[in-house]
């Protein structure tokens, strides 16, 4: 629960290493969604060599390439700051490489296993082929009701342990690559392979994270542009599938 006399703090964790894929946009979305509700925000970028504040309200980790991901994991392991933050129950969103780092191990350069932070019961191994394309998820659990849409681009296959749940069931795309699911949901930590950025395409998820951090439900906020984008993206995936099915039928 945050105090009422200070700005809401959005902390970007190592964006110099973990923001390959436009994931900085997640911070922009959260900041703007709060600003439009009259809530003052502060956006803090914690680059390598800077101490991670423990007073953040939400922590964001994005995707990154191999060498950068390995450096980021080493830095976060060394400082233990993120572990402390997660233990305090702060809200964390971790995308792609960021999610992989939170697990026990992930695949580094040339597929060799690298030690993760061990904050979540998951592990990532290299896949045979890259998963690239539009993704649609049906959320599992009761916190979300709308489909999730995004774009994935990753090699890793992530296996969840028994003590954590996925973010959603894969309707289109690959996701974690095992059991037809994507991402992870554990207390107030959310991980996913969806870029887009994920919060730009999925306002329900954005507001869920904010309501956890604020400790209260937020006033509804509907952006027409977002509704139109979701309609376009979900429709595009359906149309592509229909074309492929049609082609398949014609060939037979």
């Amino acid at each position, binding site marked *: 629960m945050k105090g009422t006399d200070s700005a809401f703090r959005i902390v970007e964790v190592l964006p110099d290493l973990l923001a390959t*894929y436009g994931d900085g946009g997640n911070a922009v979305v959260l900041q703007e969604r709060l600003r439009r509700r009259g809530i003052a925000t502060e956006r803090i970028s914690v680059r390598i060599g800077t101490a991670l504040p423990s007073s953040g309200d939400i922590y964001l980790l994005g995707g990154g390439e191999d060498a*950068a991901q390995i*450096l980021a994991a080493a830095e976060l392991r060394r400082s233990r700051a993120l572990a402390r933050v997660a233990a305090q129950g702060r809200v964390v969103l971790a995308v792609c490489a960021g999610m992989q780092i939170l697990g026990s191990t992930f695949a580094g350069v040339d597929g060799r296993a690298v030690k993760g932070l061990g904050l979540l019961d998951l592990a990532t191994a290299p896949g045979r082929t*890259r998963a690239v394309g539009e993704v649609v998820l049906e959320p599992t659990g009761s916190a979300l009701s709308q489909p999730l849409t995004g774009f994935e681009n990753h090699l890793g296959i992530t296996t969840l342990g028994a003590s954590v749940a996925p973010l959603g069931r894969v*309707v289109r795309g690959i996701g974690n690559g095992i059991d037809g699911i994507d991402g992870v949901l554990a207390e107030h930590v959310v991980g996913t392979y969806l870029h887009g950025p994920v919060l730009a395409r999925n306002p329900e998820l954005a507001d869920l994270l904010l309501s956890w951090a604020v400790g209260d439900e937020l006033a509804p906020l509907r952006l027409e542009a977002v509704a139109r984008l979701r309609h376009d993206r979900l429709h595009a995936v359906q149309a592509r599938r229909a074309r492929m099915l049609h082609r398949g039928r014609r060939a037979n």
Partner: protein
Amino acid sequence: MTRTGSAVTAPAPSVAPAPSAVVAPRTTPAVIAGQVPSGRARRSVRLRVALRCGAAAAWLSRAAHLGRGQMIGGRIVLTLAPDALAQLSTGRRIVLVTGTNGKTTTTRMLAEAISSTGDRVATNATGANMPDGLVAALLAAPRARTAVLEIDECYLPTVAAATRPAMMLLLNLTRDQLDRVGEVRILERRLRAAVNAATDCTVVSNVDDVLTCSAASDARRVVRVGAGTGWTADSQVCPRCFSMVRRGSGPSWSCGCPRQEPMWTLAGSTVLRHGTTVGQVQLSLPGKGNRANALMAVAAANALGVPVPSALKSLRVLRDIDGRFGTVAWQGHDVHLLLAKNPASWREILAIMTARSQRSRRSVVLCVEARAADGLDTSWLWDVPFEQLRGVDVVATGSRAADLAVRLDYAGVDHRIVDDPRDAVATCSTHDVDVAATYSAFRKMRGWMADERH
């Protein structure tokens, strides 16, 4: 593993899609940078047959109004004679230009600089930068002893082996079409291997860009140019020593590797070689990026024997690079077309547009597509500081206008959405319109503009 849906998967971890045809390496000796070769080499029977088939296909293409036929001609030739590129390169001085941004512009600049000495130059001025485009360019100028060819970064290794170039220019390496190209680091490693294999080649490298500096670091012959860098997000970690890159306020940077000082630098518009002034860059083309391209072109030209004053003079007249930066009267407006393909080039384009908006009233049309040539995903929109367009009259158009609209909304940029790019331009309230478009949208608009002129 359960697979659902229809996600596109690409082979990992390598980056490039398989070339449209096999490109065989060249076995004849290379021409080194200072020489101009004596003449054309003999062509094999197989190649001669392939050329006839290619010419026939090109003729058919023109007869059926499908296009000028250069590309299909080149493709057929390569399919029938995989060593076509090697044969067509033999006896010629080949210069390859690659990098994420600036290839077409720098290629044009270098070709103009060399032409200023009277040499005929073969070049792919329309940006057809895959192997078939290079074949077409070499066929189109059979008497040219020198060829300046832009080549897509993914294809440089095979094309370098095929053409055994006298010179390679490495401009910059940043993220671009991540779903097609894959990780930038893998590209750097492959370029580094290609440089190391090309032992007779002079490499002109931008040492202000961490990745191109690294790719050229072991080249036997190298010309180091400080061409600057606007985008550093893909090069935070040195690909050779794996430590963090430390940057100051200017373009210089350091890591665990020995520092490589540039021989050529720019101070504003002043060109310096070993710290001594050798001329001024005067361009009709806008933006800092184009001055950097000019520096690379002048340094390369000089290493090929072109005097600096001639090279600089030849660049002054350039106004339009294959449709980029040019002005066309269209739909009742003066339209200035700009190509923006990835966050680095979008930043450069935004800087040009906002500077112009401060000087005169104009509208901005942003056209975003996500076809194969653009990269299928639009997450990169969030790496572009569109906030700079607040207060400007902005129109969003293209097949991914919805993605752009969300980005603009969150950026606090008021805008209209118009589905058809032609209407987007036609309905602008100002006479001057800057149009920034992704690659396939850019080509489509250029085609419309050309059609209406005829």
